[in-house]
C-alpha cells in the first residue's frame, strides 16, 4: 500500500477512536440517569446504535444480492462486485447483531433480572442471527465462485424475510422487550439531553461501520482478483 494510503487509514482510525471516546464520555457524563433504570440507561447508547447498524447492513445485503442476480448475465464484473458487497454487509450485520444480542442480554439481566426470554422480539432476532450466520457458513462450503454467489444471493433474499418480523414484533405482540423508544408513536421519544447523546453515539458507530465495511469490501474484491489470476496461472 502507498504511504498516502497508510496515512489516510491512520487518520480515519484516530478520528474514529476520538469520536467513540467522545461518545463514551457523553454517555457516562453528559446524559442524566434514568428515573427507573438509573445508570443502566447508559447502555442504551451502545445497544441501540448496534441495531441501527443491523438495519442498514441487512437491507444493503438484500440490495447487493438482488443486484447480483440482475447483473450476473449482463455484467459479470459488476455482479461479482455486488457479491463482494453482499458478503461484506452480511459480515458487518452479523457482527452488529451479535453485539446487540450480547449487550441486550447484559442489560436484560440488570433491568429484568433475566439474561434471556423467548419472547417474540428476542426469538425473531435470534433466528435472524442464525440465518445470517448460516449465510456466512454457506459461503465457506461452496468452492466455485459463480455458484457460491448465486446460492448466497438467493439465501440472502430468503434470510431478509425475517427482518420485518423483527421490526414489527414489539408492535404486533406483547413482549418482555420494551415498546419502541424511537418512532413509537405518541408517548415515545427521548429527553432532549438524551437525544443529543443518542444521535452522537449513532453517528460514531456509523462512521466506524462505514470504515469497516469499506475495508472488508476492498479485501473481498482483492480476493476475487486473486482467485481470477490464480485460475489464469493454472490454465497456462
Amino acid at each position, binding site marked *: 500500500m502507498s504511504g498516502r494510503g497508510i496515512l489516510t487509514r491512520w487518520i480515519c482510525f484516530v478520528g474514529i477512536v476520538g469520536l467513540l471516546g467522545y461518545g463514551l464520555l457523553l*454517555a*457516562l457524563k453528559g446524559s442524566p440517569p434514568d428515573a427507573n433504570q438509573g445508570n443502566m440507561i447508559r447502555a442504551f447508547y451502545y445497544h441501540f446504535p448496534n441495531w441501527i447498524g443491523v438495519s442498514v447492513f441487512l437491507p444493503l445485503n438484500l440490495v447487493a444480492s438482488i443486484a447480483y442476480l440482475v447483473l450476473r448475465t449482463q455484467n459479470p464484473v459488476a455482479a461479482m462486485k455486488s457479491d463482494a458487497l453482499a458478503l461484506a454487509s452480511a459480515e458487518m450485520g452479523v457482527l452488529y447483531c*451479535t453485539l446487540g444480542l450480547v449487550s441486550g442480554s447484559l442489560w436484560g439481566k440488570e433491568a429484568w433480572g433475566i439474561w434471556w426470554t423467548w419472547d417474540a422480539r428476542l426469538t425473531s432476532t435470534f433466528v435472524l442471527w442464525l440465518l445470517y450466520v448460516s449465510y456466512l457458513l454457506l459461503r465457506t462450503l461452496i468452492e466455485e465462485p459463480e455458484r457460491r454467489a448465486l446460492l448466497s444471493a438467493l439465501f440472502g433474499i430468503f434470510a431478509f424475510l425475517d427482518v420485518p418480523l423483527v421490526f414489527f414484533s414489539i408492535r404486533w405482540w406483547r413482549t418482555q422487550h420494551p415498546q419502541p423508544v424511537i418512532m413509537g408513536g405518541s408517548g415515545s421519544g427521548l429527553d432532549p439531553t438524551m437525544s443529543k447523546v443518542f444521535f452522537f453515539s449513532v453517528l460514531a458507530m456509523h462512521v466506524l461501520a462505514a470504515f469497516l465495511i469499506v475495508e472488508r469490501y476492498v479485501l473481498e474484491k482483492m480476493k476475487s482478483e*486473486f482467485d481470477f489470476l490464480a485460475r489464469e*496461472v493454472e490454465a*497456462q
Partner: protein
Amino acid sequence: MKNLDSVFAAYIVGWGVFFVFYLTIAKRTSNLRAELDRLKNSLPRAK
C-alpha cells in the same frame, strides 16, 4: 455511581470486538496483497 463500572466495561469489551475484527481484516488484506503481487509477477513469466 451504581453500575457505572459495568457499563464502562461493556463499552470497552464491545469496542475490543470491533478492534480485533479490524486487525483481522487488516492482516488478511496485507497478506493477500503480498500474494497478489507475487502472482502478478509470476504471470508474465508464465507467458
